[in-house]
């Protein structure tokens, strides 16, 4: 087996050194009834690269990629172009195959990158500090709810009707476990506007999203003011990091915690994961923040260096008193994010955001021309909801046959919420004018 360096002779010689008669001696503690006899039924034996690659390629070949044909799906994951350099960097052996940087003397590569990542996320969100990432945007959102409860010592969380329903569900899951009350506002294109009225003096936080799952961008300043007036926090969520190149960042709208999905920068769609959760807050709440943190320090020679820090918040030190059970960050995805963001810089990010917004505006313009279509999203960045006459699922299926993957039906995200005629469509820098024209034409044909 190509991954196993021991030869039969090695095994024999090593067994002799251990004093064991056979490998079975090492498994002597296994209850006799649970010892497996021969080989495991139902699973094949080892195969060479060619065979494995063919097997996997055959599975991959059964999927339609976002780069084939016309593709307008967003709602929490976005098709962007990632520079080839990014993949080169994350495939460096020294980044790919290294460990969590607990030994800072031989992990400065990872640590300095994390420090740059934290600094980038803080700058991007206009927050004071960011952690070294969470699993993804949805778990970051859930952790934000728990953190708000710790900070405020309250146990009521209000979710906007514009919050991505998967984020809402993940948040409900963790709150349920701890008996935290969750108030879910009904889905609405403009859902964030209702948050101010839902806050009360028992509320730990309100969670709003901008751009929200319908694409609506909202100034959350009034919400943060209302929340703060009642002693609650504002958690501001975003699923499309590129938007921050163009829209008001959470920190400038009074957010206390900003969380989001960083996939758009540096990371492929990957059918949903791995992604990279961004998590930022203000200085005063740092010690209540979950997740890894990298900080600056000096070595014995006085050289600047970086270490993981504030680990007294974490499970491996605090055990049952930890802020979270998390013991992973999104390592490589973080690196991809940082490398891509470094290539972009403010100039590139702004330009990228503008291209996205323009593509979405042109798409909206084109679809609006189609008879029966009603654009529902009042203000948007790169995606928006629209109503079609009839059933969105059927419309999307027909579009599919014409080579257009036209977006996400709202009923998939909000089942049973009477949104059967709503489609959420997204355009990015990858969307061409031809793509848009084809979509409009196909929709015209279908409706």
């Amino acid at each position: 087996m190509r991954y196993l360096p021991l030869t039969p002779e090695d095994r024999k010689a090593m067994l002799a050194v251990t004093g064991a008669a056979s490998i079975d001696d090492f498994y002597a503690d296994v209850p006799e009834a649970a010892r497996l006899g021969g080989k495991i039924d139902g699973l094949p034996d080892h195969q060479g690269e060619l065979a494995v690659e063919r097997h996997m390629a055959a599975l991959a070949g059964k999927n339609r990629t976002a780069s084939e044909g016309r593709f307008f799906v967003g709602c929490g994951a976005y098709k962007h172009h990632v520079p080839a350099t990014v993949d080169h960097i994350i495939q460096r052996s020294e980044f790919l195959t290294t460990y969590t940087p607990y030994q800072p003397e031989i992990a400065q590569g990872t640590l300095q990158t994390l420090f740059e990542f934290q600094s980038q996320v803080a700058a991007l969100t206009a927050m004071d500090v960011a952690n070294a990432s969470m699993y993804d945007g949805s778990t970051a959102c859930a952790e934000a709810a728990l953190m708000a409860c710790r900070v405020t010592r309250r146990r009521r969380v209000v979710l906007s009707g514009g919050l991505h329903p998967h984020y809402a569900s993940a948040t409900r899951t963790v709150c349920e476990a701890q008996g935290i009350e969750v108030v879910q506002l009904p889905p609405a294109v403009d859902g964030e506007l209702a948050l101010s009225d839902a806050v009360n003096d028992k509320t730990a936080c309100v969670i709003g999203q901008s751009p929200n799952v319908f694409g609506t961008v909202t100034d959350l300043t009034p919400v943060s003011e209302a929340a703060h007036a009642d002693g609650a926090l504002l958690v501001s969520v975003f699923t499309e990091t590129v938007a921050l190149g163009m829209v008001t960042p959470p920190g400038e709208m009074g957010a206390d915690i900003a969380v989001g999905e960083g996939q758009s920068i540096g990371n492929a769609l990957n059918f949903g994961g791995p992604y990279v959760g961004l998590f930022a807050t203000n200085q005063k709440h740092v010690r209540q923040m979950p997740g890894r943190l990298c900080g600056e320090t000096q070595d014995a020679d006085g050289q600047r260096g970086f270490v993981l820090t504030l680990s007294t918040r974490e499970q491996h030190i605090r055990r049952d008193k930890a802020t979270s059970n998390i013991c992973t960050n999104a390592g490589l995805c973080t690196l991809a994010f940082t490398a891509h963001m470094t290539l972009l810089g403010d100039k590139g990010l702004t330009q990228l955001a503008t291209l996205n917004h323009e593509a979405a505006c042109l798409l909206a313009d084109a679809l609006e021309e189609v008879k029966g279509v009603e654009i529902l999203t009042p203000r948007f960045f790169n995606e928006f909801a629209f109503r079609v006459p009839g059933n969105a699922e059927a419309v999307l299926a027909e579009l599919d046959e014409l080579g257009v993957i036209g977006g996400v039906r709202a009923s998939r995200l909000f089942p049973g919420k009477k949104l059967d005629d709503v489609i959420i469509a997204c355009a990015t820098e990858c969307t061409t004018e031809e793509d848009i024209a084809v979509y409009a034409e196909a929709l015209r044909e279908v409706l």
Partner: protein
Amino acid sequence: QREDLIFETGCVNKTGVDLPKPKGVKPRLGGVARKRPTDLPGLSEPEAVRHYVRLSQKNYAIDLGLFPLGSCTMKHNPRLNEKVARMPGFADIHPLQPQSTVQGALEMIDQLATWLKTLTGMPAVAMSPKAGAHGEFCGMMAIRRALMARGEIETRTRVLVPASAHGTNPATAVQCGFKVDEIKADKRGRVDMEDLKAKLEDSSDIAGIMLTNPNTCGLFETDIREIADLIHAAGGYFYCDGANFNAIVGRVRPGDLGVDAMHINLHKTFSTPHGGGGPGAGPTVLSEALADYAPVPFVVKDEDGFHLVEETKGEGEDAFGRLCAFHGQMGMFTRALTYMLSHGADGLKQAAEDAVLNANYIQARLKKVMTPAFDGYCMHEALFSDAFTAEGIETLDIAKALIDEGYHPMTMYFPLVVHGAMLIEPTETESKAELDRFCDALAAIAERAASGDESLKGAPYLAPMRRLDETQAARKPVLRWVPPEPESLAAE
């Protein structure tokens, strides 16, 4: 050599991308436009490449040498896995595109699930947990839901956790609303059965146990079946921390040991890259008793093909909702399945055996100069205490001295039940020659430690940096770059 931060070398007017010029379309942002720029520095592509390549060389990595991290399992990461994960048919598909257009992806998840269920002997698996600790959360939430279904969630709130457990176990139990009750280890390094039985005397509040097997002392829990029976008899569930599953794949099925839930760290057992701290993936296998309480989404198959059940109704009505957006760590699944197919059932068993052999070889070679924590053979990791060291030399010094010999330190001070613990896991992907070099190096350090060589306190000397001041970092945390004050600039 110091590598400046991007904030020190880059500038906001520089970029390493070329994008088409905007067309000047009328915006629809409705006034929620950014008012000032972001201060994010950009670098040209050559500068960015050099920055990160240089930084990378400051890291140690499995591709450079042995990583003897007990309990963390740093093994070879095959490049075929990376290639497969990047196939556009896996990497360039969207989690919300129509299911008819991702049948291969769903089939892939289903195949991986079949491997996991078969290898563990468990009937169900939840695929969406995003890392080991997330898998623990998934399993404990399933237990929570099962207790709810039994109407006992209010009363059954106590979870037994051995003192030797990973920190995630107690943290997870608390996150799921349980109380932690610690069980002692006995002098064999296993669960103290007397203590366990005492803790179960009043079992009406028992929700379950969280046990790692093989345990964090690198030993197989001899009484595992009895423990399972006791917990079940007490009305609780058996959560097994699967961090060490890699030691027993193909030799033992957790399902045969009475386990109700177990997460599997794909990077430990199935070689997805550790990546400097993630991303992970922690699919969680479940027993018949817990299978109905798995979270959404999950994949089912019928005559029309594969489907993703996304709503908590019908089949998934007892599920506790979502752990996260979408369907889990697809990019890790492709790597893990590729690894499984490469190894096959025969190779996975051989890998477990080689991992155990390598650890026992290290234990045998080092026991003359270091103090094994327990008698007898170990599983996939060898555990030593610091009993052999001279006054004033501690585990940390030995670990840092290993860096100067060209190795990453072993796991230190864990498990907590052994004084100055040194936990060494070589994995199956090390050759005998490499193990011999490592043992020679560590034996030499151990002798210096035994003789009280004070120079160990200053190690490492040859790494990219000397020992870093972690206290300073925590006391006054600097967690992001801030521009230097104009004064301090002037003072320079």
